[in-house]
């Protein structure tokens, strides 16, 4: 059973545009929501993470928006660059339990 649902499966954005990836969850006990970035041939790497006590977290061009009541969170990549082309995974976890990954979004940023 997929505990974190991620969309879209793939995304094409022009350079300079905004990339938006959405995730939804059901388990209200989740208390940590990271995003991982994976380049071809590499392992996933933690990009940015948020806890449910805040609604937004920004690190450079990457922002997580969190809506606790809707049980949704999203990743926004501002001024998207070709170097951002990668697969992005949202995830969620609760204390004492393993991380649950979404199915991933393949992002392509065209020049």
């Amino acid at each position: 059973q997929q505990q974190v649902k991620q969309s879209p499966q793939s995304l094409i954005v022009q350079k300079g545009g905004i990339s938006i990836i959405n995730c939804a969850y059901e388990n209200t006990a989740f208390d940590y929501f990271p995003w991982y970035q994976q380049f071809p041939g590499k392992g996933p790497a933690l990009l940015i993470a948020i806890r449910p006590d805040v609604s937004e977290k920004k690190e450079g061009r990457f922002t997580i928006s969190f809506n606790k009541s809707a049980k949704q969170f999203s990743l926004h990549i501002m001024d998207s660059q070709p170097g951002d082309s990668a697969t992005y995974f949202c995830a969620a976890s609760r204390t004492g339990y393993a991380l649950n990954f979404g199915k991933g979004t393949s992002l392509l940023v065209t020049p």
Partner: protein
Amino acid sequence: DTAVSQTPKYLVTQMGNDKSIKCEQNLGHDTMYWYKQDSKKFLKIMFSYNNKELIINETVPNRFSPKSPDKAHLNLHINSLELGDSAVYFCASSQGSFSGELFFGEGSRLTVL
């Protein structure tokens, strides 16, 4: 200086063979994991060890046997390989059990012919 290193990076083998993948982390973490990534990129946890103790053992065929000789090493042995075992296997580590901040290796791509 690689934080989480896996060997080998590629394995190509015939059905029915046995193979092993080794993983080492130099981050001083106490928890290590094996994940399987299939052709659709889905990441599925297989096993986790905390200080050499098995703490996660997902529904994985018993042909897969992890072994952690110490907290810096986690190996994966696979017996009687099947076509469906073809995937990329990632080792990861974290400080503390069930931490959401995982550090992944570069993966070991297994192809079973």
